[in-house]
């Protein structure tokens, strides 16, 4: 095998990452749960992206008969002010997915950074950062959001921030544990002896090995984020300008006994999203774990 002729046998990092991603998704889709999870998420993503094309009505349009049961004109029926619930649920998918992914990503960045520093440097840094994380873990999110909304009114970014603040400590703890374990390994010592910079060690040496359980947690975080957002919407705290599943439930709670469809369909949508994300996380976990256990750490 003569590779000396080739200038570099290594594809560029970005191309390699993309290829790894495709392989990974393929692997996930083949696991028992991952395949179902992928299918559900794909469905939700398509619905969110093509919402304007799929939804038969403008969701906020109050044109139909109020509290009409499901029919051919209104697949999911209408709510108390005549809005088509099917369109509401379709558009609500957008909000939920954005919040779910956005909050998960935000928690990953915030929690990941905190955990990384706490786990790598230990000592005083660890003490301070992990106490802060514990503090946030004990804060009642809903109460805080209530206060903030009462003071500043509700908007989307506020809600997103609230959800991120609720879920970042779990991510931080996970990354912290990974870094504590990995910083003791000989390849980190070797990097120090080779005078590689601290930033390099934290990001290029340790991070790739720390990631596998972290992405599983991120998928679960997204499902938690969706649930939190739905709770906040249900309590009436969500941004009135945006359609969200929780918000539909907020309106529907007064009519549960007379118009079951107003709460059933948004509830089912929430269920589907959460289950889909959990199944996806299961699939992720399966491809991530046996590698680690079988032949020592390997990509």
């Amino acid at each position, binding site marked *: *095998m*003569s*590779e*000396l002729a080739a200038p*570099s*046998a*290594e594809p560029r990092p970005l191309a390699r990452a993309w290829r790894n991603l495709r392989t990974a998704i393929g692997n996930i889709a083949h696991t028992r749960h991952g395949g179902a999870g992928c299918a559900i998420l794909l469905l939700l993503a398509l619905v969110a992206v093509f919402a304007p094309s799929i939804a038969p009505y403008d969701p906020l349009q109050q044109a139909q008969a109020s509290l009409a049961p499901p029919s051919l004109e209104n697949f999911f029926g209408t709510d108390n002010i005549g809005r088509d619930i099917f369109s509401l649920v379709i558009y609500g998918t957008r909000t939920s997915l954005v919040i779910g992914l956005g909050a998960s990503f935000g928690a990953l960045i915030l929690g990941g950074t905190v955990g990384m520093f706490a786990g790598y440097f230990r000592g005083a840094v660890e003490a301070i950062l992990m106490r802060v994380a514990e503090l946030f873990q004990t804060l009642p999110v809903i109460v805080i959001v209530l206060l903030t909304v009462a003071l500043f009114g509700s908007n989307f970014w506020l809600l997103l921030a609230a959800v991120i603040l609720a879920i970042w400590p779990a991510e931080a703890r996970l990354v912290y544990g990974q870094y504590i374990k990995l910083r003791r*390994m*000989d*390849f980190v*010592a*070797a*990097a*120090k*002896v*080779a*005078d*590689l*910079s601290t930033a*390099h060690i934290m990001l*290029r*040496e340790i991070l*790739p*090995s720390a990631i596998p359980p972290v992405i599983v947690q991120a998928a679960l975080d997204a499902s938690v984020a969706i649930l939190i957002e739905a709770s906040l919407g249900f309590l009436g705290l969500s941004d009135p300008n945006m359609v969200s599943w929780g918000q539909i439930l907020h309106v529907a709670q007064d009519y549960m006994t007379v118009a079951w469809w107003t709460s059933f369909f948004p509830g089912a949508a929430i269920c589907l999203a959460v289950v889909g994300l959990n199944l996806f996380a299961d699939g992720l976990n399966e491809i991530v774990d046996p590698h680690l256990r079988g*032949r*020592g*750490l*390997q*990509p």
Partner: protein
Amino acid sequence: MTSQILQLRGVTRRYVSRAPYSWRRQIVNAADGVDLDVHEGETLAIVGESGSGKSTLAKLMLHLEQPSDGVVLYRGIPLPDLNRQQWRAYRRDVQAIFQDPSSSLNPRMRVEESLSHVARRHELAEPAKLRAFLAGHLASVGLDPPEHYLARYPYQLSGGQQQKVAIARAMMLEPRLIVADEPLSSLDISIQVQVLDLMRELSRRKRVGFVLISHDLNAVQSIAERIAVMQHGRIVEIGRDIFDAPAHPYTRLLLQARLSADPREVRARLSNLSHARASNQPAEPPSLQA
């Protein structure tokens, strides 16, 4: 005047731990007032059993840990006092190889990437010539064809190959001293011999010194010029001919505990045993009875 690349003066490393089921805190001196000189170019072995503190000494020499008391000096300057330039010289001059070769290479990087980071950090070659540079060093430790190994992940290599990559990584920087912390204990005997031979040859050809830390006296005997014996964090004996004329009782104990595969010694041992069986007596030297 001899040149010492590293010196340890009164080096102590304390760990505070709590004994199980007790509130009392235990202070363990992993290293206890150690004085040691490492001469330029020499192969010094540090032997002892587990818990003797020899690995701690390695970490202290590499500045992976700091002493609780005492000082480690590089070319006469205490490590904490090194300025930027001296620090870079220290990090080039003093390199390391570790015990478990599979964890001393980053499992998520191919060999080429692992080595490139180090090479680029120290500007060992221009980017266009980097690959050839790395290939050359892999070949010099016996990994041939080097391109084959550059493309591999660590898990695709055997323990001996991984250890050779680690040696290449250390040698790339043209160090004056390599601290090897139990580099052989994870390897099969035939591979141990290869790695020992490699170290011996590098010592001769490149005039690089070794601090070889090992619990295996047999392995050390074939390569070490000076041997330090450690027990409970202290050096109890140090010298050139501890194998022939051990002075300290602990050294004698270690020497006696060696098992031999030499046919003549096996014959002596077996006939000793069969005589013992015939007369129904235990045959072991009384000093080693539990």
